[in-house]
């Protein structure tokens, strides 16, 4: 159960971090976000990852939890990347920038 909650927090955390990045916003969010929202998302992202660490360490013990957290981070980041690439793959071709001449 702790694993599931921590993984969910890591996915949400990395999703926030990804959404906070200007270059990924068109693909991941669908539009550009203003600077204030991006900053807020970035802070929220880091806070969620820290919350996952807290959950892991209370639920699984300090040592075991810390090891599990590293693994949960990897999985969370990987799933967000997968989602981002699905979003890019689904986009119509016209979004791609025209080649420079």
């Amino acid at each position, binding site marked *: 159960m702790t694993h599931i909650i921590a993984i969910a927090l890591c996915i949400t955390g990395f999703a926030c971090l990804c959404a906070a*990045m200007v270059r990924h916003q068109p693909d991941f969010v669908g539009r550009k976000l203003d600077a204030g929202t991006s900053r807020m998302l970035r802070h929220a992202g880091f806070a969620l990852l820290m919350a996952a660490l807290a959950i892991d360490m209370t639920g699984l013990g300090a040592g*075991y939890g810390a*090891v599990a957290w*590293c*693994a949960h*981070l*990897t*999985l969370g980041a990987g799933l967000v990347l997968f989602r981002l690439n699905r979003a890019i*793959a689904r986009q119509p071709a016209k979004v791609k920038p025209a080649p420079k001449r």
Partner: protein
Amino acid sequence: MKDGFRQSMAWLHTWTGLLLGWLLFAMFVTGTAAYFQEEISRWMKPEVTAAPDREAATQAAITYLHRTQPDAESWFISPPSARSPTVSTFWQPRKVEGEEPRKRRGRRGDTSATLDGQGQPVTARETQGGFFLYRFHFDLHYMPVYWARYLVGVAAMFMLIAIFSGIVTHKKIFADFFMLRFGKGQRSWLDAHNVTAVFALPFYLMITYTGLVTLATMYMPWGIAANYSKPDAFFEEVFPGRKEMERSDIGAPLVPVRPLMEVARQRWNGAEIGSVRIALPGDQNSTITLTRASSGAIGSRGESMVFSGTTGDLLEESPTQGGAMATQSVMIGLHAGRFAGWGLRWLYFLSGVGGTIMVGSGLVLWTVKRRAKLPDPARPHFGFRLVSRMNIAAIAGLPAGIATYFLANRLLPLGMAERADWEIHSLFIAWGATLIWAIARPEKRAWVESLTLAAGLFGAVPVVNALTVPRNSINGLRSGDWLFVAFDIAMLMLAVGFGYAAHKAARATTAKPRRARAIKEELATA
């Protein structure tokens, strides 16, 4: 200056990564598989099904050893666990005056036995199982263990250098964190290499460093050499529990082991007993040493308790470990992951797969980067040909070999002489055949064909299993034999993965000229 530093780090990263990259790839593959070595062993011994009671099985093993090896110097028993249903035992024959004590070689041969819960030798096919993959990870094969461990150690040190120089070389770890672009040739390979490297970076740093720690006294013996007359003196001081008792030559029966195991389990907050060592069995001075299982805590070196074998009194308890010993124990524990439960074990496995892809993509990147700059792409120079063919043999060949190892386990005749050895030989025969194929065929075709071969072999494992043994996924779903269900799924996923890679490699062959033509047309119209 900054760019100069980064460039020199890039050079270091390229060459430390390449030089032993194929060995690192093999270490990553077998090490990752070794996280499931007990499960692989169980799959490779389908005859063994019982999951007996630990204490009863241990007692039964003692009865067996009492009957067959009453004169042994000591008995060593590993009780069954949640992951391994059998009892492994080995013994030290009694020393005979004037005779050199026989050195124990890599294989224990006639001084070991695998028993079931009733203390009967297990009648299963002869195989090394997952243990072979685990040992290959650091002992390799067909070569002296001593040299293998040095070679593996050098590779691990190169890996550590490659990780640090890679971090310096990677210009935008955070800005490019989620950057993975497909269909862009070299850029895509670089993205894939970066993403797999960054996502599990804590794991790679941990696994490489702690891997070196496991054999640290071998790689850096000078600290011991400077302070002790003999290395053995150091180990005796560090592991005091190993001191031997004097034989009294007065016979006395052993106490039952179950109550002692109960005492130890309570002392260790419910952690299971990982090993039982009985010194001087049958003698009045016999001792029973219980050691905590490595699954009970992160530290791999479990606490131990020594009991008198004739009275059952507690004689000695392992002292609290000092800081350095505890650190080493935790590092080795982190590396081997024996403490990990199911969830974490799978995550360890996935991180290992990530590492395998990282090393593999790095190796491929070396060729992709240089292919464009070749003076004559049709006739590349020797170094380029060597690297590209070795890549095929390593990346597609070793997995194909492991699939062959599993198939050989099911297909070799059960009564065959040296059966376990031939399973291992078949792994290397398949691996070597891929190398020859990679050299003989045009490069692109060799990629597609050997990846397809690996996919086919993994895909064949569930089928051959279903045809040769009664345990398979369909029966497993009905009877709750989850090991066989999970193994089949894992094999099919590997087959799909390699099949997809083969598909991609085949498409890359045809896509290239088309893109070149498109660019040419574009230039013409511009």
